[in-house]
């Protein structure tokens, strides 16, 4: 095989570091990304829950909105309450379409004079096009010159604090600037594993050196996309394209908690009527946790049956290393969306029993400050 990728495959600034660490690469959202390193997905997953895991998430889109009132402007596209955000505070929300379906899910952080957004790699081009088309007067800056690292796990914040003193004082879902090697690193206390941790936005030119310094800390191991997926699945967190799509609403997805009282009442975002109706009457189907009874993993698109009738399908499913068994999420009709409901999963033509369970599978251990 050739050592240089086809021209349409991109690499993050940490590509050579991944290769040095023995990463196995897979194409993901147009990037050559490490799916796992030498330790393997199982060990990487467990290491993150026990100590601290370093993830390269530089493929994700970092976007800044500049304007006098960027929060007010962005509220036209998302149901999240951005005006209520104090400077330094962060919120999870989603771009919606006219039917209330989800175009992408994202993090929004209010800074003193702008809004900092992190969007999915697979959606970033469309998101930026949507922002440009919809937010007249707002300057939209795509931070192509910055890498994004995630350090996750019970020891992640102690490690980050060693390199960037003060990180440990940050509240959960807040962001602040730190200086390392005379470069600004923008840190948020957040993540996608259910563990405490940080995400670090750093100039491309500094990403390799900073990642190596993190990896030199005894608690830290590199973690690939494979474990990132199993960690977020156990944590009950949605994956865009699987659990969230243009055909699913935030209410069906169990994300009503992301929409404040003011925004529920006032609307003013795409699909507001559909979402308000679902909030009032309850959605016809809901995302639930599903625990297969046996050992066979139920992957996405597995059919879900109740009493012989099809009631939905699995949208994310696999093996949960911390649960030590198969775990899944999927959409079922409202009547079945009750913990304890018995279901059948059709895996390779055979019926396998399963139960609706509360999410997450692994308790969240976010910072309590």
């Amino acid at each position, binding site marked *: *095989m050739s050592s240089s990728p086809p021209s349409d495959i991109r690499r993050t600034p940490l590509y050579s570091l991944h290769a040095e660490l023995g990463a196995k690469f897979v194409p993901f959202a147009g990037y050559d990304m490490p*799916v*796992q390193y030498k330790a*393997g*997905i*199982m060990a990487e*997953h467990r290491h993150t829950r026990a100590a601290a895991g370093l993830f390269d998430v530089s493929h994700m889109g970092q976007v800044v909105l500049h304007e006098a009132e960027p929060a007010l402007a962005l509220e036209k596209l998302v149901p999240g309450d951005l005006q209520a955000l104090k400077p330094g505070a962060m919120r999870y929300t989603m771009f919606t379409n006219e039917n209330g379906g989800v175009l992408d899910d994202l993090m929004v952080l209010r800074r003193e004079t702008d809004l900092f957004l992190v969007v999915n790699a697979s959606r970033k081009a469309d998101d930026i096009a949507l922002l440009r088309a919809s937010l007249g007067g707002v300057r939209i800056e795509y931070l192509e010159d910055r890498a994004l690292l995630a350090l996750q796990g019970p020891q992640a914040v102690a490690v980050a604090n060693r390199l960037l003193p003060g990180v440990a004082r940050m509240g959960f879902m807040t962001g602040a600037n730190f200086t390392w090697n005379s470069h600004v690193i923008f840190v948020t206390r957040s993540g996608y594993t259910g563990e405490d941790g940080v995400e670090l936005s750093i100039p491309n030119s500094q990403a390799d050196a900073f990642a190596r310094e993190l990896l030199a800390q005894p608690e830290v191991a590199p973690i690939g996309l*494979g*474990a990132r*997926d*199993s960690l977020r699945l156990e944590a009950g967190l949605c994956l865009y394209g699987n659990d969230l799509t243009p055909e699913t609403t935030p209410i069906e997805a169990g994300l009503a908690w992301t929409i404040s009282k003011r925004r529920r009442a006032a609307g003013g975002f795409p699909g507001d009527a559909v979402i308000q109706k679902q909030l009032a009457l309850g959605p016809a189907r809901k995302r639930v946790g599903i625990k297969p009874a046996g*050992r*066979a*993993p139920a*992957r996405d698109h597995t059919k879900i049956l109740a009493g012989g009738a099809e009631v939905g399908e699995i949208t994310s499913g*696999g*093996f949960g*290393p911390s649960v030590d068994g*198969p775990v899944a999420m999927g959409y079922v009709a409202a009547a079945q969306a009750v913990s304890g409901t018995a279901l059948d999963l059709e895996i*390779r033509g055979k019926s396998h029993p399963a139960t609706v369970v509360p999410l997450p599978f692994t308790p969240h251990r976010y910072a309590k400050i």
Partner: protein
Amino acid sequence: MSLKYTKEHEWVRVEDDVATIGITTYAQEQLGDVVFVELPEIDAEVEAGNEFAVVESVKAASEVYSPVGGTVVEVNEDLAAKPGLVNEDAEGEGWFVKIKLADPDELDELMDARAYKAYVDTLS
């Protein structure tokens, strides 16, 4: 007899007219941690080149194709509780099934260890 191999990374060892079948060390390295193996029923008929088992890693499910045809006479029950045997000892304790051969001539189509190693070397 020594092991014979397929391009789909299965191995077969024949004693009398019974073939023991599994996936190769190379295959388990590519799959990563094996978390579940779906095996056929005893007495199931399998055909050479057809899917007869599924091996699931944390990440994905992969089909396993039979190198030879015949009747399943035994399956490795230990894999139900310890699927990780496939990673630890793919070409030994991590075997999948034993098949009573329908046509021993099918073995002639398979690679010996040297040919398989040369084939694997072309893949990396």
